[in-house]
């Protein structure tokens, strides 16, 4: 435990549990306000507030330390509270299905961003094919469901395995190519997949696949509302919980891999490939592995997306989608789970909230992204050092 950290945390004199509770509730409330904001004034005000928060973090880095420290000290509380907030969140949205929808999309993209983070963040492999593996997952499960009547739960692993195989295939050129050359291989792979989805007839061509049936669980169809304690949640809540669970899975995987020898090996490759080799790290294998893990998670996300929207088309899986996912990782902060998720939320919500700018929406979104990158070049939350043997 580094001494400076402890001192700062102690100096504030606040108990960790209080810091954690306040932070989580404040974050949830801020998100809620953001989701509900409709008027231009409100949106701009909230954006300004967020800007102020990050300015604060920039000016007083100790603030971040205090919070991180507190979350570390009161980990059990933090997890429990987060779970509760996630569970009861839909009740606060009332019947705002739009907000629920945005949350679902944000959760799915968070998963995708975390998937990409295994490569971009951990190993520094610029992979522009996450959109493609996402698509492969979505198409595999949709085709199985439509043509062979497979259930959602059965397609999930099938899609993941198919995508992982593609992921490994894509990993093969990474044995020899690097940096921008590798980036181009992944770009090319993504475009080839997308064009094939668009041109082949058994994938439904440009029109995509219509009528993907809704999943059901223990006889409860995901198309029907949830009733808990006399309160009814709209059908979207089903998918909300599903995608939240998926993100939970992604976070857990990210955390477990990060806190193991595998994550450390990835980081070593990122810092110096040659030196990593000389420590006994099989660089090629670990790189291919990163592609596999990325594809696996992306396919899960794809499957959930397909069954949620009930329709997919090649337009969902373009190069631009891959770039968006990459932007989320980078804006959020490479190799920092919280940062990546925040990046994903921000970049899903932002274009929606900037709808007030009508046909200048895209322009504003891009400008904001550039500003974020310039003002916080290490990402919203930068990568952190591992600590061992505490608690």
């Amino acid at each position, binding site marked *: 435990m580094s001494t400076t950290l402890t001192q700062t945390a102690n100096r504030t004199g606040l108990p960790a549990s209080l810091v954690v509770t306040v932070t989580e509730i404040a974050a949830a409330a801020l998100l809620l306000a953001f989701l509900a904001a409709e008027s231009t004034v409100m949106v701009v005000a909230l954006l300004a507030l967020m800007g102020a928060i990050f300015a604060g973090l920039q000016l007083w880095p100790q603030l971040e330390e205090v919070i991180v420290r507190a979350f570390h000290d009161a980990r059990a509380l933090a997890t429990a509270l987060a779970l509760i907030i996630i569970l009861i969140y839909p009740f606060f949205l009332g019947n705002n299905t739009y907000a629920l929808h945005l949350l679902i999309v944000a959760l799915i993209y968070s998963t995708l961003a975390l998937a990409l983070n295994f490569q971009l963040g951990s190993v520094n492999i610029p992979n522009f094919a996450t959109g493609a593996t996402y698509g492969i997952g979505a198409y595999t499960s949709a085709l199985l469901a439509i043509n062979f009547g497979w259930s959602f739960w059965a397609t999930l692993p099938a899609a993941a395995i198919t995508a992982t195989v593609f992921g490994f295939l894509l990993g093969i050129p990474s044995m020899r190519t690097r940096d*921008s050359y590798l*980036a*181009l*291989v992944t770009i*090319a*792979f993504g*475009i080839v997949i997308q064009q094939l989805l668009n041109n082949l007839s058994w994938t439904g061509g440009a029109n995509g696949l219509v009528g993907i049936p809704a999943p059901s669980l223990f006889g409860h169809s995901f198309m029907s509302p949830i009733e808990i304690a006399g309160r009814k949640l709209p059908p979207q809540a089903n998918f909300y919980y599903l995608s939240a669970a998926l993100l939970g899975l992604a976070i857990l995987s990210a955390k477990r891999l990060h806190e193991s020898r595998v994550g450390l090996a990835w980081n070593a490759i990122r810092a110096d490939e040659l030196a990593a080799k000389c420590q006994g790290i099989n660089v090629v294998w670990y790189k291919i592995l990163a592609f596999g893990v990325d594809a696996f998670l992306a396919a899960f996300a794809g499957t959930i997306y397909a069954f949620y929207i009930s329709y997919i088309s090649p337009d969902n899986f373009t190069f631009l989608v891959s770039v968006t996912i990459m932007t989320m990782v980078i804006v959020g902060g490479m190799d920092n789970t919280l940062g990546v998720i925040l990046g994903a939320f921000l970049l899903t919500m932002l274009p929606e909230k900037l709808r007030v700018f009508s046909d200048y929406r895209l322009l504003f979104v*891009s400008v904001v*992204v550039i500003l974020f*990158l310039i003002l916080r070049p290490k990402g919203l939350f930068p990568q952190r050092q591992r600590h061992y043997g505490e608690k």
Partner: protein
Amino acid sequence: MDSLFLQYLLNWLVLGSIYTLVAIGFSLLFGLLNVIHFSHGDVSMIAPFVALGSLQFLLGITSSTVGIGPILLVLALAILVTGVIGIAADRLVISRFRQAPAMMALVATVALGTVVRELIRGFYPQGSNPKAFPSIVEGFVTLNSLRLPALPVLIIATTVLVIVLMAALMQKTPIGMRIRAVAEDAATARLMGITPSRIFAFTFFLASAVGALGALFFASYAGVVRFDFGVQLGLIGFSAAVIGGLGSMTGAVLGSLAIAGIETLVQANMADGASYRLVFCFLLVIFMLCVRPSGLLGKPVFEKV
């Protein structure tokens, strides 16, 4: 000569030339300066709009047809303005990521590309619509007994000239060396009397200006320009530069010819070939990079430890 074959040949060379002009910019920025400028295609595509705008302005004041002089003027202006915008793109956005990991600049320039496109779309008069773009030259030229359309000949000839000039610039003057030096170690380059910011400005100007020429030819050859044409052109130019080997001028030419070649071949000879054009282009890219991981002429840099 078989006129069909001749047509294919011309078409291949013209596409190859246009791609080359765009690829050179990528190769310069990416291969020498290590700058990932994903909006290079979009910035280049500003040139046709500048040309169209100023042409309209000229037509407005002279109200008659414009001769070759003014047309050259308009083209030169377009190239100049685009070059300056290239410098601005660097100063305003890209330069902020010099110390940052390469991916930051990449993502920032992807966003910058959108900004450029949406600015044209929103602020050029009726910017969302496709704009007819005139052919720079009309008519035919006769070479020996061969009657060739003038525009392709102009495009190919100009490109060859540009390549020769660029090669001379890089080899006969110390500029290439200086660009490399700045890219590799800016602090030491300063100790060697080089001002990095000037080198960056120069390189961005050069890359954007050559790209602008490519975009002008592209618009003229297609006969039309739209605000979002830069995306695909950029992607293909980037691919050409990479499979040719970043930093290598000859590589950029070879890469461009390879991509233009497979496009032409596939479309001419394969049933359904046109719809699979991009598939084949990018399969070629994957294949080439599997076979030659640093591009055709890229030097595989040995790490000395």
